[in-house]
């Protein structure tokens, strides 16, 4: 269980997270929706300890991430994987080396076993074996996302954080990526946080949905509950209504 309690963060005096309270149940996919720039990625970076809050707690099985430093934080991060918005694949490594990277760095598995696992993951993401020798700049946006997902999955983490997993992809590829998230979640049962603004596609993968607005969670529930939520801001966002005067 991941619990966020009263989390505040501001940049240059401007509050981005203004008292976030949120629970992400173990083994479920929680999706945080909200307009671009409301602080969804900032929230995600607090969960993995890449950013420190002004105040508040991020509890992972009752361990407060905000209080961890150095080796203890590194140990906690071994339970995580993150799929970054642009994939964050290492430019200097080819696809095989990128996917194998966490295993080579953090395990003592023999080379043959690493190779087997990498090819298994690439196959799971519908990527042909020839892709393994390409470099990130030779891949399409959708392929980069799938390679990044393969890298995130390779160590079979307990928790995966997805930062805008389909931003910049065409609708068929977005559906493919959401399908892969669903499939890998069914296979592995990890706990997931997805931050996204792609509606209604995100409802395909969500067990729970939270809406972030002006630094606060203004709605939380199952996809059905959110779709029928009474708050006009939630309805306006779901329907994609033009909102020139807001902010």
């Amino acid at each position, binding site marked *: 269980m991941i619990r966020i309690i009263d989390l505040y963060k501001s940049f240059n005096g401007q509050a981005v997270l203004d008292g976030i309270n949120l629970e992400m149940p173990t083994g479920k996919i929680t999706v945080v929706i909200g307009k671009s720039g409301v602080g969804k990625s900032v929230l995600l970076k607090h969960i993995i300890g890449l950013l420190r809050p002004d105040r508040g707690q991020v509890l992972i099985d009752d361990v407060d991430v905000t209080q961890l430093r150095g080796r203890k934080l590194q140990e906690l991060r071994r339970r995580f994987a993150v799929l970054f918005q642009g994939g964050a694949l290492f*430019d200097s490594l080819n696809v095989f080396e990128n996917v194998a990277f966490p295993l080579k760095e953090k395990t003592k598995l023999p080379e043959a076993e690493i190779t087997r696992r990498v090819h298994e993951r690439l196959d799971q993401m519908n990527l042909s074996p020839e892709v393994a020798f390409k470099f990130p700049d030779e891949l399409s946006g959708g392929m980069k996302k799938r390679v990044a997902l393969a890298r995130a999955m390779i160590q079979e983490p307990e928790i995966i954080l997805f930062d805008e997993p389909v931003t910049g992809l065409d609708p068929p590829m977005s559906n493919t990526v959401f399908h892969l998230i669903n499939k890998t979640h069914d296979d592995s049962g990890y706990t997931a946080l997805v931050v996204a603004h792609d509606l209604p596609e995100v409802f395909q993968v969500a067990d729970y949905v939270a809406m972030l607005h002006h630094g606060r969670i203004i709605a939380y529930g199952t996809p059905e509950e959110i779709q029928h939520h009474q708050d006009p801001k939630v309805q306006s966002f779901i329907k994609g209504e033009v909102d020139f005067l807001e902010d």
Partner: protein
Amino acid sequence: MVTFIRHLGRWLLNWVQEAGAMLLFLLQGLALAFVPPFRFRRLLQEINLIGVKSTLIVLLTAAFTGMVLALQGYYTLRKYGSEGALGSAVALSLIREMGPVLTALMVSARAGSAVTAEIGIMRITEQLDALDTMAVNPMQYVVMPKLLAGLIAVPLLTAIFDVVGILGGYLVGVVLLGVSSGSYFSGMVQSVVPLDINGGVVKSLVFGLTIITVASFKGYYTEHGAEGVSRATNQTVVLSAVLVLAWDYILTSFFM
């Protein structure tokens, strides 16, 4: 006037703050060289990037520097009938001063800018964050091998610069202008003492560390996307060139 003093004070405070942050960055990077894993393969990759790939530009600069030193030196020494001292003039100028400084400036322009751009792009595309989330220390994986490579590669490039510069001087002084080959080399052997060579080595070590520290620091703390990378790269080249020249004065005053 008050506004000017306020701006000057703020500028000075920022400068001191950045210098302190850079020093801590350097110390942290070097300390990580003694913490496993030791990343020998990454070190070799960085020596290739910073050292081997700078060799051509260093060779060209060295050859022309040696040639122009011999040309200038010959016509100056001829006025006093001392053409025989050409070898020692070329060698001392190169070993004490021109070799370390020009090598450092070339490395800063070629490899320093490349290091900043590489790390800066890693920052804005979240590759450094990705390392962090995989429990791999980005300072140890990315920065530390570059610092060590700077320490190893720049003195070696400086040695190459000195040798090629002396040969360039030989080409102009002996082959083209007719100075005797024996006096060119014997003057050099008599006048160059170990202190000159040690001074050059110390300078090149300091310059190498300075350039790669500035380049890595500027890249590591890049902000604001592609424009930020461009600005950081520019700052690296300017700041490391100024620091190399400032260090050169300080170290020269120690070795004189």
